[in-house]
C-alpha cells in the first residue's frame, strides 16, 4: 500500500484555507461568508490531523486529536451564535446582504 504523503494533505489544507479566506473577502451573503469560515476551520483540522499522524509519541498525537475535537465544538457554538444574529437581522430588515448592512458608516 502506498501511503499518501503528508505534504499532499498539508497542501490540500492550505488550499482549502486560502479558498475559505478568499470567499470571506469576496462573498456578500453572511451565511456564505460563514460557510467559508467553516471551510477555513476544517482546513485547520486537516492540518492538525496530518501533523498528529507524524508525531513520535502518544502524548503528542493525542494533543493534536483533542485540539481537533475542541475546534469542532467551538465551530458548533459559533454556528449557534452566528445564525442567531443573522436571524435577528433578517427579522428587523428583511435582508441580510452585507452591503446593505451599513447603517454604521456615517
Amino acid at each position, binding site marked *: 500500500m502506498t501511503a499518501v504523503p503528508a505534504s499532499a494533505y*498539508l497542501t490540500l489544507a492550505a488550499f482549502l*484555507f486560502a479558498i*475559505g*479566506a478568499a470567499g*470571506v473577502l469576496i462573498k456578500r451573503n*453572511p451565511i456564505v*461568508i*460563514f460557510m467559508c*469560515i467553516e471551510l*477555513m*476551520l476544517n*482546513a*485547520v483540522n486537516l*492540518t*492538525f490531523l*496530518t*501533523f*498528529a499522524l507524524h*508525531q*513520535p*509519541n*502518544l*502524548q*503528542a498525537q*493525542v*494533543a*493534536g486529536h*483533542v*485540539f481537533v475535537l*475542541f*475546534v469542532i465544538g*467551538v465551530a458548533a*457554538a*459559533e454556528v449557534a*451564535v*452566528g445564525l*442567531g*444574529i*443573522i436571524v*435577528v*437581522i433578517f427579522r*428587523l*430588515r428583511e435582508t441580510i446582504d*452585507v452591503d446593505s*448592512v*451599513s*447603517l*454604521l*458608516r*456615517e
Partner: protein
Amino acid sequence: MEALNIPQVEWSALLPVLTVVGAALLVLILELFLPRGQHTPLMLVGLLGLGLAGYFQLALWGASLVTWAETALSDNIAVLLNLAILVSSGLVLLFADDYLRARNMRYGEFYPLLLFATAGAMLMISSTNLMVVFLGLEVLSLSLYVLTGLARAEVRSEEAALKYFLLGAFASAFFLYGIALLYGAQGSVDMRVISASWVASMPGKMTNALLVASLALMLVGLGFKAALAPFHMWTPDVYQGAPTVATAYMAAVSKVAAFGVLLRLLSAAMPMLDLWSPIMWAIALLSMLVGNLVALIQRDAKRMLAYSSVGHAGYLAVGLVSMNMTSLTGVLFYLVAYALMTVGAFGVLSLMARAGDATTVDALRGLARRQPFAAFAMAILMLSLAGIPPTAGFWGKWYLFLGALEGGQTLLAIVLALTSVVGAAYYLRLTFSLYADALEAPAARWSVPAPMVVCLLICLIGLIGLGIAPRPLAESSRQAVERMANGEWQVVSGE
C-alpha cells in the same frame, strides 16, 4: 503502547476562573426564579463572585504554578492582569443594571454572559498552552458577540454584532491555523517550547518555515482582538453600535486579555526577535498614526474613543517591540490604567446614551452645568487617557517611552510622543466642550445613579492614586516580568 498518566492537579491555580464560572452558572439559574426585570440580585451575586475570585487571585501572588498537565499556569502577570479584568468587569456590572433598565433591555442573560466572558478572558492569560488560550479566546469572543447584539430591537446593535462576529471568526481561523502550524513544527502547542524549537531548527528546513508562518498567523488573530492596525476595521463600528455597557466591557477586557497573550507569546518567541520585531514595529507605528489621526476628525464620542483605543493599542505594541524590562513593565502598568480609564469613560457615555441623548462630542457640551460630578469625572478620565500628569495614563506612557528609548527604538519613541500630543488635542477638545455652553437645550434631564457614582469614584481614586504613587504597581509589574523572564516555574504534575 504507552499509558497516559493521570496528572496531578493543583486546584488553586484555576480557582479564580472556576469561581467566576460558578458565579455565572449560579446567576443563570437564579434568573429563572426572579420576576421579570428584577436583576439586582443577579448583579449582587455576580459582584460577590468577582470579589471572591479577586480574593483567590490575590492569594496566588508570588506563586509560579504550572499545573493541570501543564495547561494551567499562575504567575504574577496572570494575577495582575486577571485582577484588572475582574475590577473592570465588576465596575461594568455596577452600572449596567441602570443602563439596561433605561434602554428597555431587561435581559437577564446579560449577567451570565458578562461573567462567562470574564472567565474566558482570565483563562486566556492563565495558560501558555495555546489550546487553552484558544478556548478562552472563544469563550470571551462568543459572549462578546451576543453582548454586542443585546439590543435586539435596534438594527445598529445587530449590524455591529454581525460585523464583529464575521470578522472575529475570520481572525480566530487565522489564529487557529497558526497554532496548527506550531503543532506541526514542535509537536506541542505550548508557548514555552517555542524558543527551544526555534533554537533547534535549521534555517531553510521545514520546522523553521513552519515556526515563522505560525507566528505570523497568530499575530493576525491576536492583532484583531487587540484592535491593532491594520486589523482594527471592526473597532469603530462595533464600539458605536454595541450597547454602551457592552462597549465599556469589551474595550477594557478584550484589550487586556489580548495583550496578555501577545506579551507571553512574543516573549516566548524571543529568539525569533529579528523576524517578528520589524512586523510589530510596522504594526505599532501604523496603529499609533491611524488611531490618533482618525480619532481627531470623529464627531461621535464613542467612535472617537474607538479610534483612540487603536492608538493606545499602538502604544502598547511599542512596549512589545522594545522587549526590555522597562517596556514590558510599561505594558502591564498601562493595561491596568487603560482598563480603569476606558471603563470610566464609556460609563459616563452610557449615562448619556441611557437618557436618549446622542453621544456626539457636541451633545457633551455644557455637561458641567447639568452634571458637575459626571463632567468632572469625564474630564479627569480624558486627562488620564491623554497622558497628562498626575494621572496613571502619564506614567504608563512614560514607562513605554523610556522602554522604547532603552530598547533603541528611537523613532517609535518619537512617534509615541508626537501622537500623544495629537491624542491630547482631541481629548482636551472633549474636555473643553464639557465646560462650554450647550448649543441647544438638552433632550432629557437625568441624574447620576448611586452605583455609577461609586464606579466613577473607584476609577478616579485608582487613576489619581496611581498617578501620585505609581511605584507599588510599577514594582509589582517589574517583578512579574522579571519572574517570567527568568522562567521560574514550579511544575505540579507527574505520576
